[in-house]
């Protein structure tokens, strides 16, 4: 079985190399690279944000539905290539207070304790800036490295019990508690000829000095593109992170399924 898989894998890669996909200055789909969307193109997923390429070098992103409870906005700016690397920076902010207050409630749906012993959730404004660098290793293989820093500003104290101790969620809420967070990551996009691609990444969220100091997140996605206007993403997310415990933080693995559908449109530009 292993030999069979190996042959299929090698065959698929050879085929990919024989039929190269020539990378453009922009990426038709936003897949974690330093490339921005082409000007006039927008894309939206069930779970991924709405993205819009304003110019060849500037891309905006926001989660429209989430905006009702977590106002958020992000933009990516691409720069001149540095040697073989395409460089971009990504900056964004979000305001999670309305959502946190919404899920702080009695009964079902209460993710945060509503007890009067815990003070009100203050206003929190979180911002992140990242540097992204993408190198095209081969026409079918794109490597992106990224690193960034996040800060959170609060109008008051946030009680330590005001956390949701779940994978993905807890490390992001830890930012609100501690006020800062670093992130490092690497994305790899393997583009196959025809309709398939594989997108895999590793991200490390760190809060140096904090007890629950890290979350290592890995994603594996198979992407099937029907066209440049529709694609399906299916895969998994693996998280190994530190969570609150006594007398010291505990680490735990979680494996979560990922599924998304994405649509895109291209607005005609002059």
């Amino acid at each position, binding site marked *: 079985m292993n030999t069979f898989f190996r042959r299929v894998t090698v065959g698929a890669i050879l085929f990919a190399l024989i039929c190269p996909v020539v990378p453009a200055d922009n990426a038709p789909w936003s897949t974690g690279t330093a490339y921005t969307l082409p000007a006039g193109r927008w894309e939206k997923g069930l779970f991924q944000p709405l993205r819009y390429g304003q110019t060849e070098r500037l891309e905006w992103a926001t989660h429209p539905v989430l905006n009702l409870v977590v106002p958020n906005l992000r933009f990516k700016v691409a720069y001149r290539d540095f040697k073989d690397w395409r460089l971009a920076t990504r900056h964004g902010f979000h305001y999670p207070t309305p959502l946190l207050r919404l899920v702080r409630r009695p009964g079902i749906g209460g993710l945060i304790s509503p*007890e009067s012993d815990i003070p009100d959730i203050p206003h929190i404004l979180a911002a992140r800036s990242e540097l992204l660098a993408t190198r095209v290793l081969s026409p079918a293989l794109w490597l992106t490295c990224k690193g960034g820093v996040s800060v959170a500003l609060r109008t008051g104290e946030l009680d330590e019990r005001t956390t949701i101790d779940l994978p993905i969620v807890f490390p992001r809420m830890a930012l609100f508690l501690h006020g800062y967070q670093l992130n490092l990551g690497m994305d790899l996009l393997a583009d196959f000829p025809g309709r398939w691609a594989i997108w895999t990444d590793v991200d490390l969220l760190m809060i140096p000095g904090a007890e629950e100091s890290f979350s290592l997140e890995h994603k594996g996605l198979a992407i099937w593109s029907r066209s440049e206007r529709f694609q399906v993403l299916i895969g998994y997310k693996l998280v190994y992170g530190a969570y609150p415990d006594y007398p010291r933080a505990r680490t735990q693995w979680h494996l979560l399924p990922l599924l998304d559908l994405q649509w895109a449109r291209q607005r005609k530009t002059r």
Partner: protein
Amino acid sequence: MRKVLVTIGMFRWLVASTLLLACEPIVNTFNEVEEAVYYQAAEIITPPETADTLMVMNWNIKFGGGDLNFWFDCYGDRVLMTEEEVLTNLDSLVEKIRQVDPDIILLQEVDVEAKRVAYVDQMQYLLDHTDLNYGVYISEWDTQFIASDGIGRMDGEGNGILSRWPFIEAKRIALPLRTDQDALTQYFYIRRGLLTAMVELPGYDNFHVLTIHAAAFSQDGTKKKHIDIFNEELDKIDATGGLFVAGGDLNTIPPGSQKLHDFKDSICEEEEFRGDDYQEETEWLTGLYESYHPAISLSDYQADNALYFSHSTNPRNGFTRKLDYLFTNSAWVTGSGYTHQEIVSVERALSDHAPVSAQLVLP
């Protein structure tokens, strides 16, 4: 080419290995019978080689909640304790346990990995701060996350036994689930279990200890089923010539109780948390009392119910009913049975249940 092959290979390896390593159910539904969790104190204090009697204690410790007013009691809205609150309350429990100095203690409502107790492993804490050396534990509520009232991660509400001597053959026997709840509530709700273990007491190779926390708020007879299974397990041990000490929070009153309903401390109006009408339950413990020896005899209890009350949802105003028990098929030292109502004063309460203790006669 090499990079691509390495990448794909790593990708496959990661998928395969993570599928094996990382899958954990949202709710632990427990097997019918499974091994209990074994504990050991950080420092072992050499236990006595011989003993004629053993001091045995039973205590529902309310997960170290002391006299905080929790939402389910309808006296307050507390859900999550701070680490300081938990440790302060546990230290008070430790002080009481050290004062009674039991050889074996049966515990109910012990949390080991729960957000509501700031993730303090209460089994380990009690072992490390008392003269007891070994512990066995079964969880009754093990859920990755409860998305209600901010409860969050929960592994607790369990039964434990601590002893000076090691345990063997400790197991969890699953008790029937309540059937008066909708499927979703039942899935995430407490799953009761009977903890049974053998203590390696020098000179005794068939000494069993059992503890149970019967269903509290069921309206469908589940509590009766739990008590019957408890009784049956004791009968099995007795029939094979085993010696046992058993107890717990049976959540029902002894035969001959004068007050059967409308307890002044029960103020919850929600049906879900009403469990204070015992009119149909007056004979549910008759079998246990007739077959085995209670730490507090029925005649003593019937002579003055109030002396032996062990529970109230508002304990600072005094206990209102007896729910906590110790039984054996050996004997108790006459007059040694005691209900520690002194754990409550107008200033503070260590739990909403009073411990019961008695001196077990070893044959």
